């Protein structure tokens, strides 16, 4: 309906909008970080011991996976800028695979907890006391919300990859790719905070 939309394009506006949206995402997790801090302060011993039960190996692996995937998505933007469509799509594909690998790891990690009857609302967990209930409650909620963001990010990247494949997004017009990259970096960044909070600080 708006003719100006056809002629008018403002990449800086799109990017500004994306950055503002990322602020809101940070604040969304910010609320959870506050809750985490309060309960960690109140249950130092339980949080300390529960953190030992998480697998640092899987956590580290996932951190490395996400860091590499952030690199590949950044490289895909450069690839598109230099008009190397094939390389760009390849790098985006790698990013998606790495994101999936992250989710697979998460699946096994969560599965192991579930087998030990550790999940929100379980009676086994309830017997271990308030600190453990809160630690695992926060753990599942925060990593779960983060995993949801990974899925959203993957879908976002996939949609952009299809657009690049169909040449709707090209070296002249790649702000959406940049925005998907920004989103993916955010998902990565949040994990960089979740990882030490749950796995490393004991």
């Amino acid at each position: 309906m708006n003719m100006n939309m056809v002629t008018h394009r403002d990449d800086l506006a799109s990017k500004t909008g994306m950055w503002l949206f990322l602020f809101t995402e940070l604040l969304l997790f910010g609320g959870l970080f506050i809750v985490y801090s309060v309960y960690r302060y109140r249950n130092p011993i339980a949080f300390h011991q529960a953190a030992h039960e998480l697998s640092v190996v899987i956590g580290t692996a996932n951190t490395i996976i996400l860091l590499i995937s952030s690199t590949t998505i950044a490289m895909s933007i450069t690839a598109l800028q230099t008009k190397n469509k094939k390389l760009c799509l390849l790098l985006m594909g790698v990013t998606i695979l790495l994101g999936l690998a992250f989710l697979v790891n998460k699946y096994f990690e969560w599965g192991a907890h579930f087998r030990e009857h550790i999940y929100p609302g379980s009676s086994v967990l309830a017997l271990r006391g308030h600190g453990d209930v809160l630690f695992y409650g926060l753990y599942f909620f925060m990593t779960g919300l983060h995993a949801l963001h990974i899925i959203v990010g993957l879908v976002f990247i996939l949609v952009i990859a299809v657009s690049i494949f169909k040449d709707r997004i090209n070296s002249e017009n790649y702000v959406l790719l940049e925005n998907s990259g920004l989103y993916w970096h955010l998902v990565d960044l949040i994990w960089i905070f979740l990882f030490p909070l749950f796995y490393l600080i004991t």
Partner: protein
Amino acid sequence: MSTQKTFEEPSYLEYKGKYKGIFSWILSTDHKRIALLYLFSLMTFFIVGATLGLLMKLELIAPGKTIITAQTYNAFFTLHGIIMIFAVVIPGLPAVFGNFLLPIMIGAKDVAFPRLNLLSWYFYVIGVSLVLISQFTGQGPPDTGWTFYAPYSFRTTGNMLPAVFGAFVLGFSSILTGLNFLVTIHRMRAPGMTWMKMPLFPWTLYATGWVQLLATPIIGITLLMIIAERTLHIGFFDPTLGGDPILYQHLFWTYSHPAVYIMILPAMGAISEIIPAFCHKTIFGYKFIVASSIAIAFVGYFIWGHHMFTSGMSGTALYTFSLLTFIVAIPSAVKVFNWISTMHKASIDLQTPFFWAVGFLFVFMIGGFSGLILGALAANIHLHNTHFVVAHFHFIVFGGTGYAFFGAMHYWYPKITGKMYDSRWANTGLIIFFLGFITLYGEMFFLGMRGMPRRYYDYDEIFHTGNIFSSLGAIVMYFGLAVIIINLIASLKNGIKAPSDPWGGKTLEWTIPSPPPVENFDEIPVITKGPYNYK
């Protein structure tokens, strides 16, 4: 004024896009049509909310059960709160008048993201629908009040999930609108419109945009936690699982206090437009009004604790929050001072929007001063959770935002519809409304002072006289509201054609025809002077 420029383009109301009938509205990305979508949906919800309010007041006309049971009363004040807060006053001025006027006032053809703008409206409608669905499904309607306080919100058998999720979706709508406006203001101001040449309504929308963006995610995550608590029993706020209900209150008010400024800042912006237009005078202290808007938005983040003075906090926290509450009153007072000074020695054109603006000043000051009483620690202990609080926030939220909304409605009505309203009926409606308003809420201050608690469907005999006054006021106010709204609707048909600048306003929206053409401007204007360039 009669020499209107002829534009080749049709007005936005007549324009034939690719869709027909209702689809030319609900699929339109034109900011003006989206604004009207918001206006109609918002007014519908407002009437629903107001009717619920009236029914509650009728229940309170006599002690004991009058027309509804206690449980229904609880459901009514919950729904009244959710609808009025999340679906009416928070989107209120930004979504309706912001959408319509922001691009025009800064000399742009549309907002930065028109499709996102339409998406916000869909989120809005979906959110409210979810809230309404919660009333008719599951095991009875929610009965927690609009604050969803823990732990009751996950223990009640009421149908909380759709209501809480609806509020979450409404938050999304609010964030996207704020984001859209921020980018629009940053990127799309007409050439020559520096920050200090921007009109004050866009300025307040800018401050509001930041509050929407930075505060709303907190309520988003808090509501998600409530949902997780209800479905998964995680224990965030459940004392039996080690959680802390007070933490919920902190998180809730971290958003919901700044949200008060989402409501009032654009209202202040509208008043800042109306007063100079009818005084035919440059606004007094433009820079101070700008600075005070930013100051309100900023300080507004740090005073949420004053909702929780009786919840249990350290002495230091109490004093700090109380002090900051007093500080946030200063920028509001600066604005009031500037508005009054603008009127000083002006030749005032006494029109309906100006009366609304003066009414705003009156009730806003009563609301503001009673807010200081509540912000004082000792007085708060006595007044907390009484009708005094109800009176205070209705004076501020309904009195402030509501009056500004109706003022803006009458001020921009000729621009939006291309018709003039019947000012005699508009003034009559205003007077009836005002008398009803003062009787309804003014009385509540006294009831609260004497200890009548809020949120009960019953009360002691000693409060009876006051409640009769208050309830009669509600009926009068509702009647006044009907006069106002019917007059505006009838004027669509009977009103005379509006010129492009009926009030002699100087901001950009008065330079284009009424109703505006689809693309707003034939040629993007170049700005060389300040916004209120009166002689």
